[in-house]
């Protein structure tokens, strides 16, 4: 403890419109202009500059709606590889300033804020913000508080390019009184409506509410938030990502399709990506789920448990195929597909089964190893299943090779 209060607190750092800022790092021309970064294979604005935001464009908005609101906007293809490079550089700067850093998402970190002699938390927040701008070129906002939830609320309220520490209870109260309860991550939609019916609409209302009532309304996870906004840190900083309980791959199909062969090709593509991830983490899938989202709004689900947890293409495709059949609605146009591997078991520690005769296993593993080696050398998807011949456009376009979920080590997903 120093003379004025605690010597440690929790910091939250969030990049300001990160993807756009990252594009501006390598492209001066984009500075000061309305810029939208497009994802979902070119269909959606996944990040926008403050200039574009001023025209009313929202994140997740389809490009054709954004064009109406901001016809002068400049649209750019996302490049997650580049964003990851900058993200790791930002992480390094924060790690130089703190012994405990959580890589929460590609542009968001939590860290233990520790004061050195003569330093203040406000000064520390400013130092980290300015150091990142100087070393990486990305503008960020830093908030420091007694807990993670408060630190995040402070940085969100200080955007853009803010640096602020709030540790005194009376200043916290002031801040909480002015923020709607939906500003807290984890409170939205139904939860917000439930709280509203009890007259809890601001963060301060929630902090002042009876703890047992909050637990009853929002379960144990809501009670955690209650403790946190009252200044009791109950959520630790994770310096390493906890082991995955599930792994998934998938996303938009780049337009609606009811063609079963195209859906099968997408299934194979997503499965190949999922296998990459299973192998990276050294786990095998015990259960596989295929989820199809349709244009009509409904979803189809297919799932199977594997006789033996597996990560081999020949084994998993035999399981994925009937899952797709189960999830498929004939004549309906699907827009998204997700593959989820559950009941993950450590690779190589699963009992061998009679269903998987030795010659099959050897052949399957040989093919997978060869594929991995060739793709490792020449490039991702250089060698892939012939089923994906139905998706030539996807493989012609290098933008489809790398996704946000391929950034490893971050906590959020």
């Amino acid at each position, binding site marked *: 403890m120093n003379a004025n209060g605690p010597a440690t607190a929790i910091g939250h750092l969030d990049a300001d419109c990160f993807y756009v800022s990252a594009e501006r790092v390598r492209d001066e021309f984009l500075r000061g202009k309305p810029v939208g970064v497009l994802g979902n294979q*070119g269909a959606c604005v996944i990040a926008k500059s403050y200039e574009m935001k001023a025209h009313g464009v929202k994140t997740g908005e389809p490009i054709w709606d954004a064009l109406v609101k901001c016809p002068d906007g400049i649209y750019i293809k996302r490049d997650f590889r580049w964003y990851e490079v900058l993200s790791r550089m930002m992480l390094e700067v924060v790690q130089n300033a703190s012994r405990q850093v959580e890589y929460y998402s590609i542009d968001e970190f939590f860290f233990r804020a520790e004061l050195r002699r003569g330093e203040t938390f406000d000064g520390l927040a400013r130092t980290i913000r300015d150091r990142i701008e100087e070393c990486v070129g990305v503008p960020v906002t830093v908030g420091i508080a007694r807990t993670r939830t408060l630190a995040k609320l402070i940085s969100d309220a200080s955007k853009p390019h803010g640096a602020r520490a709030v540790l005194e209870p009376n200043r916290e109260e002031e801040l909480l009184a002015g923020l709607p309860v939906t500003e807290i991550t984890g409170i939205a939609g139904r939860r917000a409506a439930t709280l509203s019916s009890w007259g809890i609409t601001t963060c301060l209302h929630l902090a002042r509410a009876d703890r047992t009532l909050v637990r009853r309304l929002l379960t144990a996870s809501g009670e955690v938030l209650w403790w946190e906004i009252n200044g009791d840190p109950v959520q630790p900083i994770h310096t390493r990502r906890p082991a995955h309980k599930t792994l998934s791959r998938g996303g938009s199909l780049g337009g609606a399709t009811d063609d079963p062969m195209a859906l099968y090709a997408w299934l194979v593509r997503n499965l190949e990506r999922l296998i990459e991830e299973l192998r990276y983490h050294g786990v095998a899938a015990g259960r596989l789920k295929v989820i199809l989202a349709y244009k009509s709004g409904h979803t189809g689900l297919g799932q199977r448990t594997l006789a033996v947890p597996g990560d081999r293409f020949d084994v998993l495709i035999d399981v994925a195929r009937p899952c797709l059949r189960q999830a498929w609605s004939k004549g309906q146009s699907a827009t998204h597909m997700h593959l989820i591997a559950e009941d993950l078991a450590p690779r190589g520690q699963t009992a061998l089964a009679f269903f998987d005769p030795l010659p099959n296993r050897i052949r399957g593993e040989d093919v997978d190893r060869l594929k991995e080696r060739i793709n490792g050398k020449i490039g991702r998807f250089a060698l892939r299943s012939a089923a994906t011949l139905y998706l030539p456009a996807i493989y012609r376009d290098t933008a489809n090779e790398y996704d946000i979920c391929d950034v490893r080590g971050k906590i959020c997903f």
Partner: protein
Amino acid sequence: MCVGISLAWSELPTELIGRYGLERRAHERGGEREIRFLYRDRRPRLPIWRDGRLQIVRWGNGCLQSRFLPATGWTWKESLELGYWREIGAVPVDIPAMLGYDRGVWFRVRQGIRGILVPDERGVAVAYMICVPSTHYYQVMTRSPRMPLLIDEDI
């Protein structure tokens, strides 16, 4: 189809701006002036680099000034490879562009666009933009089946 490009004002020599009256094509975006070259202009023009020199030339033959050049502003890369343009003396050129414009979408162009320059029957230089079938991404973004052939860049 890419129906326009934009260049930062600072990218063009003042002499060219004056000679071709390009001030009329100036627009401001984010506090920076740029010059737009649109195919729908009354007199469509394009900047090109030829033999290390920046020139402003006529863009295509949409106004039918020539009786023997195709009445368009674009050509397929494939038709170039088939030698169609060689017979009429076409030479490859680079079209400098900071942004391209297709079906209402302004998209960033990093290096420029490939084009060709051909003389019409009066010897006037006419530029055509080279296009290729759209990538999946470009097609989703612009809903256009063809995209400009970009220099050392994939969209």
